């Protein structure tokens, strides 16, 4: 979503310095943009990016590339102290990491569409999202 939709729409067309989305460790999913001259159009782009997934408007190749990016993080070499700290403070074991890897590897386009349908678009449609802007005093905006 970040590379195929959000960056072209919000950075290249909208003039923001950057944009993206990510799933947090706490179970939240967040869209973001930074150094962004626009507000309303950016929020519309966030919503359109989900429609983009729902319409299966992405190729297998793009899914493979997204997986590669995910594995950059999942397979990052951890220094022993950090590995121990994560195992101790959050209960992550090597088995957990392997399970997550395999699930990420098996992910299909249909899985992504199902997640977007079940969680993301419903949250937006029902207004169950937090919208927070840390922005300019001169920003012309009516409501978030």
């Amino acid at each position, binding site marked *: 979503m970040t590379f195929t939709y959000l960056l072209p729409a919000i950075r290249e067309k909208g003039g923001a310095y950057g944009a993206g989305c990510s799933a947090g460790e*706490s179970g*939240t999913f967040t869209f973001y943009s930074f150094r*962004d001259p626009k507000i309303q159009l950016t929020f519309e782009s966030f919503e359109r990016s989900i429609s983009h997934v729902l319409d299966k408007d992405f190729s297998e190749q793009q899914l493979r590339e997204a997986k590669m990016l995910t594995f950059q993080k999942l397979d990052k070499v951890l220094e022993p102290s950090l590995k121990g700290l994560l195992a101790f403070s959050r209960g992550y074991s090597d088995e957990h990491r392997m399970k997550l890897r395999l699930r990420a590897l098996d992910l299909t386009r249909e899985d992504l569409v199902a997640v977007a349908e079940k969680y993301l678009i419903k949250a937006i449609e029902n207004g*169950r999202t*937090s*919208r927070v802007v840390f*922005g*300019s005093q001169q920003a012309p905006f009516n409501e978030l």
Partner: protein
Amino acid sequence: MSIGFLERNMDKAFDCLAEVLATPNFDEPSQLSDLVKMEAINKANNIGTLGLQYARSYAESGIRASARSFESLRSDVFFCQYAAELLKTTRPLPILTDAALHMTEIASYLFREENMEFAVHGNSRKFELVKLKLEMLLNQIKNENSRYSKKVPHLIGVPSEFDKATYYKNFFKTPLTVNNCTESMLGAP
């Protein structure tokens, strides 16, 4: 808290741990004052670069209780207001003495038997020695902290999940000329 050290420095490392965990001493007003001022300046200087982090952590904080722990805007605002109070007064000593007292009190509740766990990642051949050192450290904390064995169940007040999520719609006006926008939602049940 975490500490990393070479095997040959084990004694020194445990001296450090004992100083922090067994005999924490916050009663140094001038150093506290310097730390508060430095940190406040640091936070004020970084508002521009941390805008996205503030917006994001604030947006997520109403959705999941675990995300609330990482919310940085409220705590930084509180800290800067505290620093402003400290800077504008001509008699900062009572404020700093009060802070030292509160921190000592908090430390005595934090460093209790039911509240502490230790994990060691290192050479297994040295594990027995580390275990012995940890037992000595715990004895030292027990001797110094009168609350060490006290059970305080009422302190566990943070829910692991919110009964009902709060969805914020906030615009924080800043001296910036650009915006940091975030939209957060529940990603998984």
